[in-house]
């Protein structure tokens, strides 16, 4: 049994833990979550193509994190489990970001006070609504505090500087391309006093929750499409409405020339848990032939 040789006041203990967690988080590269006219955009500085900082949790809910990978990955998996269990026992429409943010807040708070070391993470949970007014973005910090943010969140080492920049330049109704360029400019500028860097498509992880898609709204933006959106001279300022037809690449929008854009816009099933009520309503563009096109 470890025994405390000296008395440490609770204030000091909490302060030490908070300093420890904050230091760990400040070392990491930043992540920005911001609303745009048709959804919510996630931009992370992340050179890895496979170790994600931004992920899908559920149909309309996304997750972004900074800090220690193993710790936020653990929380991400817990979030997917929480959401899938919720949706399985009630209905898909009953899974909300608010419920998930509360579960995360309780977990982070308990770990902060009771475990030997707090989680060195900061996470954002976002839910895309029917309109931009109904979008929800929650920020959760290492001690379990939860904040309901309007419009945007920036986390990580340069978080505060980026939020100041977003406060000046972000406005509701900003289109995807402009929101992305703004986020990347602020990420590249970094914390005050640091050298501005060049951030190309290779060092960015970008994803959206697109409010106009049925059922699962999370899409990663990669490849030529990402380069086009980053290029202010390019005419591409929005994500394509239709999914691509590259087999096995669900959930990615790449804009590659051979991607055969023109795939189905409709999901094969509706957002409902009961298999009996999943048949999509016949839409104007549901194809009637077996051959498709």
């Amino acid at each position: 049994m470890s025994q405390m040789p000296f008395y440490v006041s609770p204030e000091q203990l909490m302060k030490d833990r908070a300093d420890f967690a904050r230091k760990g988080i400040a070392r990491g590269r930043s992540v920005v979550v911001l609303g745009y006219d048709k959804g919510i955009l996630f931009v992370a500085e992340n050179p890895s193509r496979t170790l994600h900082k931004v992920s899908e949790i559920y149909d309309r809910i996304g997750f972004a994190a900074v800090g220690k990978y193993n710790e936020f990955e653990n929380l991400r998996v817990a979030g997917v489990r929480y959401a899938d269990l919720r949706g399985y026992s009630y209905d898909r429409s009953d899974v909300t970001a608010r419920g998930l943010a509360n579960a995360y807040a309780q977990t982070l708070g308990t770990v902060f006070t009771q475990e030997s070391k707090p989680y060195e993470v900061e996470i954002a949970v976002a839910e895309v609504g029917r309109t931009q007014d109904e979008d929800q973005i929650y920020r959760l910090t290492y001690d379990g505090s939860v904040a309901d943010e309007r419009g945007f969140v920036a986390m990580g080492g340069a978080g505060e500087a980026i939020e100041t920049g977003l406060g000046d330049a972000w406005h509701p109704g900003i289109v995807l391309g402009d929101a992305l360029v703004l986020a990347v400019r602020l990420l590249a500028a970094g914390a005050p006093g640091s050298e501005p860097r060049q951030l190309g498509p290779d060092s960015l992880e970008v994803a959206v929750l697109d409010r106009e898609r049925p059922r699962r709204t999370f899409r990663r933006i990669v490849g030529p499409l990402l380069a086009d959106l980053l290029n202010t001279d390019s005419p591409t300022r929005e994500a394509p409405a239709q999914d691509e037809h590259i087999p096995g690449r669900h959930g990615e929008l790449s804009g590659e020339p051979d991607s055969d854009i023109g795939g189905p816009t409709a999901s094969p099933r509706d957002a409902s848990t009961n298999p009996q009520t999943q048949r999509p309503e016949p839409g104007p563009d549901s194809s009637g032939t077996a051959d498709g096109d």
Partner: protein
Amino acid sequence: MTTEAQGRLPAAYLAAGSSSFRDFLAGAAPELLPGSRALPVGSSVEAPHGTTIVSLVYDGGVVMAGDRRATMGNIIANRDMEKVFAADEYSAVGIAGTAGVALELVKLFQVELEHYEKIESALLSLEGKANRLAQMIRGNLGMAMQGLSVVPLFAGYDLELGTGRMFSYDVTGGCYEERDHHSIGSGSLFARGSLKKLWRPGLDGDTAVSVAIEALYDAADDDSATGGPDTGRRIWPTVAVIDSGGVRFVDEDALAGAVDAIIAARQGNPGGAR
């Protein structure tokens, strides 16, 4: 769900290692697993049964179709039930057997596949999906022995091989790959006979859909538990087409056209196409 009661997410949520929703459920909320309930020994209940599902490969993918009837003894329990479902983007599952248990199994299977996809950022292989379904059916063996059996048919597009494939199951969870065509359920004998005569290598998609509807028609002709197309109520079979573009359900208008053509061709020719 113990989440709310304790506030903090329980340990099962934060445990590392498993990408399976079913395994997670077994630890976190076992009462939600299908087949986890203990039934009184020697008892049996009368519950709605789903009937005939047919599936056949064509040039470019696989078609799966099911009638819409559920029966309970001599009663038609439901005349517009769905029995063919999209399991994920590239596979479909059709069910025969006790409807309630089967639907719960499909519901779990759908979440299982999506859960894996989200956690691993990758799709399961088609064989992986088929094996996963086999394990779920094996978990239902206890209920199957008391008469509540479920036997699905699983079909999907294999992204690695670039072909449509299908798998059938027995109540103990045996999983068998079927070639060319297959049918399950009470009308499956008649449907199989029909498929044998009508299926050819290299069918195109539209022909494959009408062969599937024709086979269901033949099943409904001779099996009282299989529902034929209901022109009065405009209830058509459920037909899913799975190809490299994913799962697609044939829409009502196209089905009405295909069914009308089959009914017209059978006037004075009750044996149908040959």
